[in-house]
């Protein structure tokens, strides 16, 4: 697994070098949507990292006398039903949402890639078995399985992460296996076999780097999905425990005030949407650059 990760990293590095010098980077930046996506994600990442420092208030400090205040200069996004500063809570929530998204996606990615690689390369009954596992996972609607898992383990963010990780690896496994199967049939892999290159080396050197691109694209999109999933589970009541400023929980609690104190639900709602939107834009952009099958930047002259 470490070796695989290492390959991803070196693959990325080499890829980066290739990208930096190539036309792909220019193509990426030529599309304003890609730039917007990158900007959103970078801004939110900064907010997530620096948020707790920059937040004007403690996200948990209550001020019952000043509850449900509409947005003012002191409280740019107003206060909630317990008089807490919504803006500060959003900033802290950004860290949570990002942290969960990254952690869950990382688990999914590593697990799914390893399984997909193994299945695609080993073939035979190993493939059959692993793919049935994938089918089983896919046959559970993701949220339903997460619900069962989180319901059983009890509500907490850690369990939500676990549940979401457990339900999300299959798409990576499928993707990687598919890429591996098609890459495996390509002649350079046959050539490597005929040159006596070891199986592990073929897997790591030849197969993995060629599936990294689509995997990264999927992972980027997935970050958004995980944020939505976390919010969804929190909505049902399986997520963060109060007073944790998790976006989904905030939205769900704020919904009771949607008519009177509109900022309570709409601020986290917009934050979730913007974040997911940013990741999706970025994913789209990365797809153009990293996923050779979706080469939309170049026209074929003849």
């Amino acid at each position: 697994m470490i070796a695989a990760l290492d390959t991803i990293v070196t693959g990325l590095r080499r890829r980066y070098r290739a990208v930096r010098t190539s036309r792909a980077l220019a193509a990426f930046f030529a599309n304003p949507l890609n730039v917007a996506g990158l900007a959103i994600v970078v801004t939110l990442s900064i907010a997530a990292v620096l948020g707790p420092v920059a937040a004007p208030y403690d996200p948990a400090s209550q001020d019952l006398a000043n509850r449900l205040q509409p947005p003012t200069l002191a409280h740019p996004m107003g206060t909630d039903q317990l008089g807490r500063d919504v803006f500060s809570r959003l900033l802290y929530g950004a860290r949570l949402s990002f942290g969960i998204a990254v952690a869950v996606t990382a688990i999914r990615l590593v697990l799914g890639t390893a399984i997909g690689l193994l299945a695609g390369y080993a073939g035979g009954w190993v493939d059959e078995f692993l793919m049935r596992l994938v089918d089983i996972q896919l046959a559970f609607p993701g949220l339903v399985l997460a619900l069962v898992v989180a319901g059983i383990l009890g509500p907490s963010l850690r369990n939500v992460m676990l549940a979401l990780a457990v339900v999300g690896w299959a798409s990576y496994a499928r993707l990687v296996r598919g890429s591996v199967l098609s890459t495996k049939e390509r002649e350079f892999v046959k050539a490597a076999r005929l040159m006596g290159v070891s199986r592990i080396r073929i897997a790591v050197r030849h197969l993995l780097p060629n599936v990294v691109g689509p995997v990264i694209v999927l992972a980027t999109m997935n970050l958004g999905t995980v944020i939505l999933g976390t919010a969804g589970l929190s909505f049902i009541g399986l997520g963060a425990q109060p007073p944790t400023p998790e976006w989904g929980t905030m939205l769900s609690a704020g919904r009771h005030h949607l008519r009177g104190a509109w900022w309570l639900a709409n601020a986290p709602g917009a934050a979730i949407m913007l974040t997911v939107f940013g990741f999706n834009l970025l994913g789209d952009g990365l797809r153009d650059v990293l996923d050779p099958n979706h080469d939309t930047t170049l026209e074929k002259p003849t």
Partner: protein
Amino acid sequence: MIGYDYLASRLATSLAVTFGVSVVTYGLIFLTPGDPAEIILSQQLDRQPSAAEIEAFRAEHGLNDPVPVQYLNWLTDVFRGDLGTSYYSDMPVSTLIIEVVPFTLELALAAMLVALVISIPAGVVSAVNRGSPIDHASQLGALLGVSMPNFWLAYLLILLFPLTLGVLPVAGAGSVGHLVLPAITLGSGMAAVVTRLVRSSMLEVLDEAYVDTARAKGLRERIVVYKHALRNALVPVVTILGLQLGTLLNGAVVVEIIFQRPGLGSLLVDAVFERNYPVVQAVTLVTAIVFVATNLLVDLTYRYLDPRVQLGGETA
């Protein structure tokens, strides 16, 4: 000559998958801390049950056997068409499920309809006018649709339609009116996904040589696009529709709660929360079967949409 073998092997894997799903659920349930008998009874009676009551409950629901035996018993019952009995009422689980399935089904179909009605024209127009303002608008709209948490959308819809405009009911089920908002909530996210897919699939197909062949015949562009290109572009879309069923069921959980609709989703959520394991077990099984069957159906639809796909061949 085609088909039987393929069908048999597909059915076999489908069975294996369904079986796997049931094993996983059963396993998960028995990892859960706490004695279901005690929890259920105290819930049900609103007080602490007596030891005799617990024993009776355990005996009644076969909870005294070792877990594998319980599982086998459950499995044999399932093969006999008996999905068990709810821990809370003596209602057969199958009755509970049959009662709510139409609601989830109508919701899923309506959402699918909403999604297709929006996404196919949007995707096609977007692809045909690639790079135009229409394309940008539809792409942006689709992205926003994918990014919107559906429960937020639901509240905004309720705020807008019944509360502000005074049309359509807030919650409940049973009429077309009740179906509109949930279907939009559920369908819009899917519409977004499918729009993007239709667009990229159309773009790919529009680059294909046979589209030029069709143009070179002197066919009108409309016919080229909607007959020659769209039919091919729909092939990958159908697969995703099958897989999207899962997403629909996910969404149904949330939508059913917000709109106070009976359905598989809310049945399951309640059952999970109440530790009504026979119901959890049965609903996951039914969901898995529906999912697996749908995807089997999708595979078969392939043959109609894309004659190149031999039923015996690789479909991956």
